[in-house]
């Protein structure tokens, strides 16, 4: 099987890449893209959020079969060292991360939101960012999303 990840066509070993294998484990264990995190396995926490054709999806419950022919983008390609995504800059300005484990998913969820709602209201942020952070970075995430939206 082949899937498009971060702009590149990636081949997955046939003996392992079964259609029902969740995208999360293919990214992490077959492709070595460990920026996408495992948190719950039941789409409840959002740590595994990636973009599929621009939409935020939870990779732990997304079968490989469903992303064939679609574009998968992970945290590794949200920005680049020289050109960080505006949200990544806002994350630094607002000193968002603590343990950092949930932040890949938070950033991907926020980036998908801003892509469709460039100036989201508080209610739209509440509705879009349902990921869990045990370090309680929520107030800073809200502030950083607003800052990134304002900066665009």
């Amino acid at each position, binding site marked *: 099987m082949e899937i498009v990840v971060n702009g590149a066509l990636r081949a997955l070993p046939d*003996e*392992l890449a*079964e259609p029902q*294998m*969740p995208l999360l*484990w*293919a990214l*992490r*264990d*077959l492709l*070595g*893209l*460990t*920026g*996408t*995190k*495992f*948190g*719950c*396995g*039941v789409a*409840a*926490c959002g*740590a595994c959020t990636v973009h599929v054709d621009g939409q935020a999806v939870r990779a732990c419950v997304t079968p490989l079969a469903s992303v064939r022919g679609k574009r998968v983008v*992970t*945290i*590794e390609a*949200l*920005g680049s060292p020289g050109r*960080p995504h505006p949200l*990544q800059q806002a*994350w*630094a300005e607002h*000193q*968002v*991360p*603590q*343990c*950092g*484990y*949930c*932040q*890949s998913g938070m*950033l991907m969820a926020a980036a998908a939101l801003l892509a469709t709602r460039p100036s989201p209201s508080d209610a739209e942020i*509440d*509705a879009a*960012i*349902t*990921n*869990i*952070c*045990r*370090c*309680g*970075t*929520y*107030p*800073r*995430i*809200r502030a950083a999303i607003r800052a990134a939206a304002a900066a665009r």
Partner: protein
Amino acid sequence: MKRRTLLLSGLGVAGALVVGWGVMPPRPRLGGVDTLPVVEGEVGLNGWIKIAADGSVLLAMTQSEMGQGVHTALAMLVAEELDVPLARVRLIAPGRDRIYGNVAMFVSSLPLHPAESGPEHGGYLGRSGQWVVAKVARELGISVTGGSSSVVDAWEVLRFAAATARAQLLGAASLAWKQPASELTVSDGVVSHPSGPRAHYGELARTAAATPSGTVRLKPPSEWKLIGNAAPRTDVVAKSDGTALFGMDVRPPGLLFAAIRHCPMLGGSAGTVDVVAAMKLPGVERVVRLGPYAGSTAALAVVGRSNWHARRGAEALVVEWRQRPAGGLDSKAILAALEQRARDADANDGGFVFYSRGKVPPRGDAGGPRSVTQVYRAPYLAHAAMEPINCTARVADGKVEVWVPTQVPGLARALAAEVAGVPLDAVTVHVTYLGGGFGRRLDVDFVGQAVRIAVECGGRPVQLIWSREEDMGHDFYRPAAAAVLRATLGEDGLPSALQITSAGDAITPRWIERGIPGLAGPVDTPDKTTSEGLFDQVYAIPHQRIAHVATRNGVPVGYWRSVGHSHNAFFSESFLDELAHEAKQDPVGYRLALLKDAPRHRAVLLLAAQKAGWPGHGPVRPLPAGRARGVALHESFGSIVAQVVEASIEAGVPRVHRVVCAADVGTVVNPGIVAQQLESAVIFALSAALHGRIDIEAGVVRQTNFPSYPMVRLADAPRIESHLVASSHPPGGVGEIGTPPLAPALANALFVLTGRRLRELPLTV
């Protein structure tokens, strides 16, 4: 047993070694030039600091970064004394020397009342106890990140190590240039003399290593450039672009993956296992039977080519699970029994007395002064760190390599060596970033499991990842607790007497048994964590008896962010609020009246009240209809925090809109990180206060994942403000201190809204 006897004979956690300390020479914690291994171009100056050829400072980092910002804060201490930019400090792994052991955490495990500890009080008993434990802890050299002790422990040690290195580097320049050291200046790691010569640290290091430091002087606060500033965290970029390496992100070549299924019944075991279906699945390599390791329940592991393949294999195992011989655990029955034990001990003056003064009046004194008696309860709680429990291990050629997000690398090493049957020196432990710890990663059960699995993997590395369900169902839980609180009010409405009798499992003896078995004693010494937040209150209540009944219920219990304070502050600060209402007095004013001799606590409470617009303390902040305020004040880990919560009830559910925190954390190293930690602790405590409960039936934990163990999410997060009281005291703890006051402050606000006093967590209206 009396407290005094305990202190002199038991000395808390380190008691078993007290007898031996006198014959061991005291070891300073500076270390020597050869304590740290060096590669070409590096020069070791002491056990903490090496200088690289380009002048970078390499700092041995003993503390695990789990979100609390310790990698930034400790690097700041060193950068400050060495006059280098923070970015020039690079972190390296420490070796196994005893200088890296955490002394402050062990000292703080002594059950001392504030009147007996603290430099400003100077009680002889307290100081001598602290001195002895410090000596013992230095000998033990146990590296621990916990107890909010990282900066407390490093404060003198790291600044002294850096200042010593600086003095040697200046000495080297002084020798080379034949100029007095007093005329040299340092800027950004470059030493210069007004007459012209200049050199960076890398050019001076080799001579410096052989140059005596002379008298080392720490910078006075007036010269600090970095300490006290909100320097950006050094880990933010890596934690925003996916490159930060957590435990389950390590990818050694040839990596295999392991999934685990514990016996669902806590403490149970596995009987017959049918592996046929599992082994038929593609990508499944082997099944490994796991006994108990460092307190874990027996389990089966399946090794596969990806985590998903391993997990499918684990799900396909057909296992005959066996209940533990003593029968299935039941949390409801345990809580009922705890309440009964507390009531009995309250009636009979039982339990271990952690603090007493004056004389508490007898019960049921009809016709006497007003008295109030109430019972409070708290459930078991899971840690549920975002990164599920995991460990990666390789056992090959008589050597063991472990990659693990842990708060106790030394204990991980010891268990890995034991399980693999190799000497300690054959084990290398790599500590990764921790995707949250909160105390769960003070246990090393999963390290034993991973090494055992790796032994079966023919030299290939294997990464064990617990599912969220295994993580939640096989935690070391915050112990359930119950307490009877009884107060007598005087003519002025203030409490003249306070008796608290609590019951619940002691954590420390169980943790020592499973993590440091060599230190476990034949009997449990009283554990401060059971009564912290109850026996050590500073309120001026003349008659007190604060006791605890330590139980052993069989549920695996562990340290949970703020430990005993997490529920004891709910008991003590909710009860005090009850007394204020009983006396028809303002809750802030009531507390202030009891804090006449506690100026630091007064200042914190007043700051919170003022910033929250509490009536009577500056401009009043009018509240929207349907909202109310509650307040709580609590000291823990050497710091003092007050919180004012603004709450309402929406659709029958409590909602918190705003939390104003005021804190005295002593000298502040990085106010930005302090604010982060206060926010973090508030949200963490709010999840517990609103939702947190672990129920156990027939030995099985009923909560399995976030849908049944819910967390506060962004939409529910309140506005949080943090305000710090300026202080020149040495640093106190930061990471846990904001957790204890939240639940009582919220419960106190809900009382104003409903007139109903909530005495059990989680809070339901």
